[in-house]
């Protein structure tokens, strides 16, 4: 075994505990919302959470994918959720987050303690076949919670036009009417505008953080990034999340300046793809034994991060409307800005063609200086596994070694840890890496 001291200095993130606290507060506030006369709503990680923010500062969301991932992390609880869902007749090849979430409702158990807190309304977007249907079923399981979903599947960013924007913005305006009618509250445009600005700020700043991982050694590893990007999936429109990402950015900039590495023996850089098997994140620690760091992925960078291609071809954070001088003064403008902003989301592009995703992945592989790619063929998510086999072919053609492992982000019954480790051993061998570090 090599020197344990490592090639590069390393240290824990100073803002780590703050990230944990934001997440804990988020779930606690959701559960306790009614105690303070507030409202609860549920929707997906990609939903336009800035819009219900206009109902007041005491309106608390729960986003379902991160909740499903939290369930999956607790294998025993997850298994009970999955089995409850199957007992109710639902297929076990459906989205694993969705099944964990439904199971939690069926068991009436909240992953963070107590009975499952029933939302007052459902607010979702729809690009994956499961999105709006997920909440159609939730509404049925909860005996008729009002449900509103917005179709955002209008094509890739290269084809955005006024007709497509109008379609989404029109649904948003109708959605605000739905919110007022459902809650009996008067909508506040100033809160919407603030939330839209927070969304742009949070998602652009997260991309800035990920950009810094182009540095060798990488200041962050993907396993740690999972605990950070998640904040953008729970409430990207909140002041707390946008502010936190700015604080994180400063810290990561400082790490780069001082040469602080996430993996002290970094000598091999890879990226993953799609959600990891949440109950088995030790896979990423195993990589470190080979001096390998997973620097992130299109998933961790682009699920919430806002990106654009710079004139020199570099993939960089998207400049916010505030930075480009766009003024947001009324409801319609806020909704239009939000729509255009989100339609550039990297993880929305491959819904129209896997080849768009391959281009982004190859760009990451080149600009983040990768030696190989680990693709998770994720049986738990048809949306992000869409076209993944084509991504593999394209990456290979571009000259990047690819390892494939099959699993499930939220159903431990479909992940074979031993076999995956064995695949990693073989993959590392092909990359010329030896297991040298404890």
């Amino acid at each position: 075994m090599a020197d344990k001291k490592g090639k590069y200095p390393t240290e824990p993130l100073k803002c780590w505990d703050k990230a944990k606290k934001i997440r804990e507060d988020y779930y606690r506030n959701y559960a306790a919302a009614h105690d303070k006369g507030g409202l609860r709503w549920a929707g997906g990680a990609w939903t336009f959470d800035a819009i219900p923010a206009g109902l007041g500062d005491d309106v608390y969301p729960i986003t379902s994918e991160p909740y499903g991932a939290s369930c999956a992390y607790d294998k025993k609880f997850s298994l009970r959720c999955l089995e409850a869902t199957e007992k109710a007749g639902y297929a076990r090849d459906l989205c694993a987050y969705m099944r964990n979430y439904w199971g939690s409702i069926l068991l009436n158990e909240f992953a963070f303690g107590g009975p499952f807190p029933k939302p007052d309304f459902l607010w979702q977007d729809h690009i994956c076949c499961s999105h709006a249907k997920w909440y159609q079923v939730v509404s049925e399981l909860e005996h008729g919670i009002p449900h509103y979903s917005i179709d955002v599947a209008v094509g890739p960013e290269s084809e955005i036009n006024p007709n497509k924007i109008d379609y989404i913005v029109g649904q948003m305006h109708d959605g605000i009417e739905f919110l007022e009618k459902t809650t009996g509250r008067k909508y506040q445009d100033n809160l919407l505008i603030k939330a839209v600005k927070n969304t742009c700020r949070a998602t652009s700043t997260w991309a800035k953080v990920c950009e810094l991982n182009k540095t060798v050694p990488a200041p962050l590893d993907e396993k740690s990034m999972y605990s950070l990007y998640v904040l953008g999936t729970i409430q990207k429109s909140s002041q707390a999340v946008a502010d936190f990402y700015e604080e994180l950015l400063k810290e990561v900039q400082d790490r780069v300046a001082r040469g602080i590495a996430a993996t002290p023996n970094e000598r091999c850089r890879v990226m993953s793809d799609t959600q990891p098997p949440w109950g088995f994140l030790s896979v990423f620690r195993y990589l470190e034994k080979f001096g390998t760091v997973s620097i992130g992925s299109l998933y961790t960078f682009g699920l919430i991060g806002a990106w654009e291609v710079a004139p020199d071809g570099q993939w960089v954070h998207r400049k916010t409307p505030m930075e480009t001088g766009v003024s947001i003064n009324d409801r319609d403008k806020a909704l239009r800005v939000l729509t255009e902003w989100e339609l550039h989301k990297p993880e929305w592009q491959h819904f129209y063609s896997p080849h768009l995703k391959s281009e982004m992945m190859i760009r990451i592989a080149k600009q983040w200086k990768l030696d190989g790619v680990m693709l998770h063929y994720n049986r738990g998510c048809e949306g992000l596994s869409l076209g993944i086999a084509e991504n593999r072919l394209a990456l290979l053609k571009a000259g990047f070694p690819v390892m494939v492992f099959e699993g499930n982000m939220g159903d431990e019954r479909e992940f074979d840890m031993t076999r995956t480790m064995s695949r990693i051993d073989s993959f590392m061998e092909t990359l010329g890496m030896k297991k040298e570090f404890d």
Partner: protein
Amino acid sequence: MKELEVFREWKKNRHEYARDWQKRTGGKVMGYFCTYVPEEILYAAGVLPVRVLGSHEPQNVTEPHIFAMFCPFCRDCLAQGLKGRYKYLDGLMIAQSCLHIRQAYTSWVKHVPVPFSYYLCMPHKVQSKRAYPFLRGELEAFKKAVEKWTGKEISDKALTDAIAVYNENRRLMRELYDLRKAPEPPISGEEAMEITMAQQMTDKKEHNEALRKLLAALPKRKRDRPAGTRLMIIGSEDDDLDFLHMVESLNKEQYPATFVIDEHCTGSRYFWNDVPEDTDKLMAIARRYIERPPCPTKDWEERRRIPHMLKLAKDFGVQGAIVMQQKFCDPHELDTVAIRKELEKKGIKTLFLEFDVTVPIGQFRIRVEAFLETIKQDDLF
């Protein structure tokens, strides 16, 4: 029956038909995925739209392109392209529906390039008033792309004529389906499926002509077996004739059964509603596709598919429903529980079956026989 034979021939020799059509008309052939494709626009441009379907044969060519957790239908369709069975296509397109079939399209255009390809953004939220102007805009863009491709302008008159041919086809099909409401329907479910499959692969004028002849001949026809238990087949894409044949060929003394109606996209969902009257032809077409019986991918927030299928079940005197789906079909899996619950509330027993590229006929026979027995027991007691 010779009036039925022509549909069987068209379905069986679909590629020969398309190549022959190309030769005799000089027109272009467009392969398409998903029945949300606005065929009227293509037909108005002198293009023959043909739906790409699988061949129900085991294959080994799609594994590098589509992850195995996606439905067998999308893999079977892609296999047809990779095996070169649709080499005659001048174009290939898809209307946005499920993620699964989308992969067949995106892999096909990448690895088997065609001169023209198009992804039409059919909206998902068909229950929103916002879908109408949006789809109209998308249809306008599509019309322009087709005009550029064919080098011909599509006039309002050409659209009106195409709509008339298509509406006539739909009317004749509904007339045919109406005959299945009779206590002893003159056609089987298998035969009806052959007709609807042929409908999606042939020139509608020719299909109309054949339908008229069939409708004239059918009243005199008597089938050689009793209708027996009246079944409905509900589900995702379904062109599995072998399965329907098996069910309708079971021992006619013990298990007589006939499929009298279907609710899937290879069947009634394809033709159930017309393009309405509207001076704005593109808006009329948009209305037709938005208001058609929905695919589950577009059936939210309210469930509108279930009331439609309950009405069909009532109108056609259905006693039992086979709820089938392509394996791994998420949109249908998201409907199945609710569908079975509502049908059973109405006293209609259900049997759920998952279909693959090939179906295990022996196992399915046992399950169907048991299902038919449970329905018969209700009659006894």
